[in-house]
């Protein structure tokens, strides 16, 4: 009985709320178990094959480094997180907004869209000096780069989603006298939502890339700074420690976006 409830949580009656709470916890535990297993295997491989630490340090050494000087990693985590969030939020809002505008105003879309595409072909890292010149040495400069990397996929998928609406459904709603606003809220946007969320998940990773690369333009705090510092002092342990912190940040952020997707797309499908 309990096994079948576990495999079909959706069919569980409202009474088993404790099980609903337990399920994510079990998932988390399983994830942690896998993680521990991976680290144990890694540790064993390095020891057994006597891999030199310059190629691959032991995870225990990496965790020891994190434990001994946690301050820069914690500060870096918080700083990079802030930049990522600002860039992601503004990029997602702009991307969806501009997607809606392009959907409505075809002429504008045709005029500007090619420029958008061109803008995405430019490696920002080549213009470090310009970024500093335009945005200064502020947190905003990093968020701007995160924004720059984020908005485009969101725009593309918003448009794609809006255009995938079945014209017959649209005609049906129109025949019932739906206003363009109602059409958008009831049909077009909900239909586009799954597509938009695919882009948002991608964008969550891109925003982090933007924040980290942004920190390469002369900053003192942040995961990007630690990576750069580690790369050029050949501090492989510090590189790995920063990689793990970035992975933690990225995975958590991604999971939050994916969680929001399950919440909203489920609701969208019900409409």
């Amino acid at each position, binding site marked *: 009985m309990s096994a079948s409830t576990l495999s079909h949580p959706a069919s569980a009656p409202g009474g088993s709320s404790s099980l609903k709470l337990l399920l994510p916890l079990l998932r988390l535990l399983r994830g942690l178990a896998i993680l521990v297993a991976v680290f144990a295997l890694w540790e064993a491989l390095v020891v057994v094959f006597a891999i030199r630490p*310059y190629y691959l340090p032991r995870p225990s050494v990496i965790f020891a*480094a994190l434990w001994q*000087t946690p*301050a*820069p990693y914690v500060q870096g985590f918080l700083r990079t997180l802030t930049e990522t969030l600002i860039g992601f939020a503004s990029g997602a809002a702009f991307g969806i907004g501009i997607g809606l505008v392009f959907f409505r105003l075809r002429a504008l879309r045709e005029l500007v869209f090619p420029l958008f595409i061109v803008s995405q072909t430019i490696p920002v*890292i*080549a213009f*470090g*000096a310009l970024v*500093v*010149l335009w945005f*200064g*040495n502020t947190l905003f400069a990093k968020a701007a780069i995160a924004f720059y990397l984020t908005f485009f996929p969101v725009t593309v998928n918003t448009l794609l989603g809006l255009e995938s609406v079945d014209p017959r459904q649209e005609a049906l709603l129109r025949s019932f006298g739906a206003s363009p606003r109602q059409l958008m809220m009831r049909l077009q946007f909900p239909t586009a939502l799954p597509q938009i969320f695919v882009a948002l998940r991608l964008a969550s990773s891109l925003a982090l890339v933007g924040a980290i690369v942004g920190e*390469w*333009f*002369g*900053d*003192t705090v942040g995961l990007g*700074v*630690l990576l*750069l*510092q*580690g*790369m*050029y*002092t*050949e*501090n492989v342990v*510090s590189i790995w420690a920063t990689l793990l912190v970035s992975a933690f940040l990225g995975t958590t952020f991604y999971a939050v976006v994916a969680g929001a997707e399950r919440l909203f797309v489920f609701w969208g499908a019900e409409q």
Partner: protein
Amino acid sequence: MTDRVDVTRDRKTSSGATRRKVLAGLAAGLALLGSASLPAAAADLTKATLRLKWLPQTQFAGFYVAVAKGYYKDEGIDLTINPGGPNLLAENLVATGADTFGLSGGLDSVFAARDKNLPIVCIGVAHQLTPFVFVARADGPVKTIQDFKGKTVTTWFTGANHVLNAILTKNGIDPALVTIQPQQVSVTPFVDGQVDVITATRYNEFYTIKTRMGEEKLRTFVAEDSGITFPRDTLIVSETTAKEKPDLVKGFLRASIKGWKDAFADPKGAVDTVMALAPTLDRAHQEFQLAEAKKLMVAGKVPEKGLFNIDMDAVKITQDLFVNAKVISKPVDLAATFNSSFLDAIPLADRKP
């Protein structure tokens, strides 16, 4: 000028004196800050930034010490130190006014900037000697420069390659006979023996190689032995700053020199200051780096002429190197590019290490 230095002991008097001095030179700049609601102390200070060539490390210890000990504040400067990064060039940021001061790449980048008409002026040189060496294995086939022939040498294609070419030419070797490759971030290819000769800064890569292989296993080749020199880590300002805010520039140099002298006198404290900003750095490496930076900064004519001395003989050697290598299209206007007047305004006794 001289009696000013004496008053700096007392913060209050000094800031008052500075205020008058700075006000005279910077009336316009301060007018912008002159909001009545600001506390008096904040209004006294002129905001300025220093762009470094790289991230915080003891190569720049003196500047961080000077900030920590309030030496710039004593000069009426509220200094922010901005680290560098890959693809950031201090010359560019100083020329555009994004940063006030720059500790830039070296004579190479100063020449390149002037060659491209960037309005920057060099006001001091930190490292008096070529800060990098060419390293081979002591037990390997490369015993002399002549042995570079037919071997694989990696170097940075950002100036060091021209030094290498010049050394080879001076020793009668056609650089075409040497396999010269771009050097990667890591020294591992050299440690693993895939590369015969590697370029190493005395304060960074050399330390890494030394700790991984042992110093006795290494043989070094120094540019100065071939009569070539390549001073690096140059202090720069824009032409506008040099012309309009000479007191700011002098104050900056005075405070920086004090910071560096403190760093030399108390290396442990200086390493603490830097490590507080970048705790993931390796302490032993940073101590070594500061010691090496000191050697480079007090070399040459510095004992007689003081820290940050611009040695025009060395400048000319480097310029010839670049003109011959066609890195710059023509000799630059040396008088306009190098300006020692700000250093000379500080008493020599204060500048001597």
